[in-house]
């Protein structure tokens, strides 16, 4: 038992500050940049066609998981992952994402933060589930299809393709197909988090970086 319980409380509060320190802000900035560069480097393959874009999305999620899981090893209190989600969302907003997509990314950051908090910021499985939820941010670019479906197919180019072609495409990109894509993205997030966790042990813990 401690001779000075008040002193212990003070030490505990000092060890886990509630406000974001300069080191927290630096960690968020550094890992946000690494996360964005990894995602961007792989997304360049998707420029080839929308089909390739769909196919490289799981690869983006898995590669970004390594950076995210490493980032989580440096998080010790609430607000850091939320800030990470917010700056990622701001960046995507500036890079051309819709306001709705960016708001979803920021919201996923808050949920991931709460999951990690529930795990005390030390639980491996809390980190894995946190990334699984955060990976749903990769579904956010598809959200405009739910909102502006008619406008999406109302351009002169689509009209020049003929009504039959438009109907076929419209039939393919249904709500259930898009929901299936969301589930596939979450599954990729889970697999990515497992691979990221194994990669941390294999490379970064040995090198003293995690």
């Amino acid at each position, binding site marked *: 038992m401690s001779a000075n319980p008040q002193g212990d409380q003070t030490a505990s509060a000092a060890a886990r500050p509630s406000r974001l320190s300069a080191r927290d802000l*630096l960690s968020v900035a*550094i890992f946000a940049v690494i996360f964005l560069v*990894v995602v961007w480097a792989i997304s360049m393959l998707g420029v080839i066609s929308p089909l390739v874009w769909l196919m490289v999305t799981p690869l983006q999620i*898995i590669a970004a998981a390594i950076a995210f899981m490493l980032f989580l090893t440096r998080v010790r209190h609430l607000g850091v992952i939320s800030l990470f989600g917010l700056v990622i969302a701001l960046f995507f907003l500036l890079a*051309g994402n*819709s306001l709705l997509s960016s708001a979803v990314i920021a919201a996923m950051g808050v949920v991931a933060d709460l999951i990690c908090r529930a795990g005390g910021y030390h639980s491996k499985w809390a980190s894995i589930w946190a990334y699984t939820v955060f990976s749903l941010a990769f579904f956010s670019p598809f959200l405009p299809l739910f909102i502006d479906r008619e406008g999406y197919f109302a351009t002169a180019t689509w009209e*020049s393709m003929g009504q039959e072609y438009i109907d076929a495409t419209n039939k393919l990109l249904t709500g259930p197909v898009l929901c299936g894509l969301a589930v596939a993205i979450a599954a990729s997030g889970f697999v990515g988090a497992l*691979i990221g966790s194994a990669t941390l042990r294999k490379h*970064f813990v040995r090198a003293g970086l995690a």
Partner: protein
Amino acid sequence: MAAPARGRLDPRSRILLVVIVSLAVMSPDGLRFVPAALALGTALALTDRAWRRAGALAAAGAAMFAGGWLTPLWWPHPITAVIALACQFTIRFVATVGVAAHLIATTSPTALSAGLRAAHAPRPIAVTLAVMLRFFPVVAGEAAAVADAMRLGGLAGAGGLARHPIRALERFAVPMIAASLRASEDLSASALVRGLGSRRRPSAMIPPRFTWADPAAGLALAALAALSWWARPLA
């Protein structure tokens, strides 16, 4: 105390410009604003004397327009339809990135931090965004170096990625992240020594000030938006 450069937009105006253009271009009926945004991005690059950026932006816009609108008219086919869809989707990003490139190229982390402080942005967001702006070239350089090394070793390419995707990702991501983190340690130490994250409000060498260029850019933006609204190009 130094004065802001003549004719240069205030950092707050540059940030606002990117946000307005992004929201307009990515809105449901945003294709009508794309030509205006491309023209604005090219004009900003020309005022920066960034000839390569201006040329690349104009060329990318023209290529997307050809692929997205002209090719399907010339050859109506499912293949050109897929290309058209990709180009129509990508041209919005090209337009927004063209204006964002002006912000990135002309705004130092210190100026961005001072601008965000002057705009009363919360400290965590202002500091984080300023550090990100400083750190982007470092990480991009490390990523390019790792990609070059993989190419020299014959490990790069879509074939390797298709055969062993996880191994290819590991070979790219692990050295890139490790090298970036090592570089970040020096940058972090330097930033902390210079008072980054301090609770005290720092003074700026070049305090952000609105000049005649800011309302002029606002008027030009309003004129381009009105023209796009009435003319409905690309719609």
